[in-house]
């Protein structure tokens, strides 16, 4: 167990290093980032360009630049944003809670809806409820989340006027549409997976044994089958978090939600390179840490995995 934990943590550190390296090298895909940052070169002498390059450190070897960046990042210094003229860390920390609020609520809503739906579908396999929920899940998985968001906005904000069109100024009412948009895909996918997992377990010998002993259907379902069927759900939460963070980019853009997603898209579009790196790192670290936690929980809960 301890060995496993150490190996897993080392692996996570390796992945985070890899991600930061990738985020760093993206800047150099199109050659010297000096020109991308300066944009319009008119009125600048060669000397000015050289000075700027030197000041930004772009004249040093790329690995050296990366190590320098990493060294500062480990000490909490993610550089300055060109656009906001503030430390990147501060800019991110102002928006990170908004994104976590959105992603956390979406995760919670996703689980609250998909678990009962998946159970009902699996228990009544082949029934009309099963078919309806599977078709809904399939349609949900096929509906691009950003179109879903726009349709929710059109119906509930523009036509019915129940919720604000965008922004985050009206408390929970502002959150309803973005959270629905963000959780929709996860609801669809999780329902399918929970149904599949529960169906598999309902066919296991130990469930038949429980039935043969004369247990009530309710006890068989909740005490014997469900406990095991929900174990894959823990892994799902890890995957969900990835799609939620990615989905935040689009959902936040649609609803003008002032979080990390909008910040990142703007940093990318505005070529605010150091802010972009900081955002990408932040996303990746969040995702990797969450998955690390998920893996440990999983190992802890499933004795079959623990004993291996």
């Amino acid at each position, binding site marked *: 167990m301890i060995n496993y934990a150490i190996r897993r943590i080392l*692996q996570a550190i*390796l*992945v*985070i290093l*890899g*991600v930061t390296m*990738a*985020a760093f090298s*993206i*800047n150099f*895909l*199109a050659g010297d980032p000096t020109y*991308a940052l300066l944009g319009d070169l008119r009125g600048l002498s060669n000397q000015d360009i050289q000075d700027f390059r030197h000041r930004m450190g772009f004249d040093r070897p790329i690995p050296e630049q990366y190590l320098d960046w990493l060294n500062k990042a480990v000490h909490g210094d993610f550089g300055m944003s060109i656009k906001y003229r503030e430390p990147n860390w501060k800019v991110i920390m102002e928006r990170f809670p908004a994104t976590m609020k959105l992603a956390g609520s979406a995760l919670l809503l996703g689980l609250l809806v998909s678990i009962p739906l998946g159970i009902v579908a699996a228990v009544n396999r082949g029934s009309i409820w099963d078919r309806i929920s599977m078709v809904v899940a*399939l*349609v949900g*998985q*096929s*509906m*691009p989340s*950003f*179109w879903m968001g*726009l*349709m929710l*906005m*059109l119906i509930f904000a*523009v036509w019915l006027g129940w919720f604000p*069109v965008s922004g985050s100024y009206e408390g929970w009412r502002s959150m309803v549409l973005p959270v629905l948009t963000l959780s929709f895909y996860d609801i669809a996918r999780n329902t399918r997976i929970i149904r599949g997992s529960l169906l598999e377990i309902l066919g296991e010998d130990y469930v038949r044994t429980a039935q043969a002993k004369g247990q009530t259907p309710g006890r068989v379902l909740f005490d014997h089958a469900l406990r095991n069927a929900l174990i894959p759900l823990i892994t799902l939460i890890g995957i969900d978090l*990835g*799609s939620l*963070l*990615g989905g935040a*980019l*689009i959902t936040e*853009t*649609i609803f003008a939600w002032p979080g990390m997603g909008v910040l*990142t*898209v703007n940093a*990318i*579009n505005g*070529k605010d390179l150091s802010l*972009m790196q900081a955002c*990408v790192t932040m*996303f*990746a670290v969040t*995702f*990797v840490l969450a*998955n690390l936690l998920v893996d440990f929980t999983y190992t802890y809960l499933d004795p079959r995995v623990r004993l291996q």
Partner: protein
Amino acid sequence: MENSNKTPFDGNLDPFMEEIKPLRKRRWLIDLKRSPLAIFGIVVIVVMAFIAIFAPVLTKYDPTSVDLAVRLKPPMPFKGSTSEHILGTDALGRDIAARLANGARVSLLVGIVAVFISGVLGVSLGLVTGYFGGWFDDVLMRLADVQLAFPFILLMLAVLAVIGPGLWNLILVLGVTGWVTYARVVRGQVFSLREKEYIIAARSIGSSSLRIIFLHIMPNVLGPVIVIASFAVASTIVAEASLSFLGLGVKPTTPTWGMMLSDGREYIRTAWWLTTLPGLALAITVLGINLLGDWLRDVLDPRTLIT
């Protein structure tokens, strides 16, 4: 088991195999007839492909020609519509039907070409790493971890921002980033296949590794690959639309569904059809492909063959 009153099983499988042969052969056709959803999916794909291929012939307007006299006309049965523009016009008076047809072209082209690239890349890497293992395998799987730790869309967005948007850059980025799933699945399959007797037999009569990989192993892993690829076409089309929506897709003069949605967002209070129609086209296409993928999975998954 019901045949226990007949001759006991003597270990000879031939009569049994003869019996199930035609069943297996016709199975996919029977399955297709039994599955109206799959038929619906195929119909959707065929219609979309037809629209995409014949887009210039089917619509009488150029998708980019501006006509400010007919700005923001709603689609046909609604008040204020004109029969000149059956699906209405956008804020610049451009014909929605023509733009949708052109969007189908871009979506299908990007979806199919990008998936082909990632499929070839992923399957080759999966075959090689699965068969040989070793340090290359370790490095590649760690690389896969790194890539999966990135929110997918963020990675593409960042790369496109740097190398510049455009159709072929988009296809390249979507194609190169899509390899992970194929590589992982194929690698896993190869792991279990490479110790099989027939592979050991092939090796012992002196077949080269290349021959074994492509002639003996590859055909056995193609089932899951086809299933992954069909779902990947759908998710790639959505990814393309999302990137276009965020402003980093194909160049702004080429009409795509994602860009139409992004333009339509500005007019959501006045012109509902600008956000509804392109999204509907996108969702129906993706649904059709997913339905086909679902059916392919049922047919090609050997585990469902028995039951």
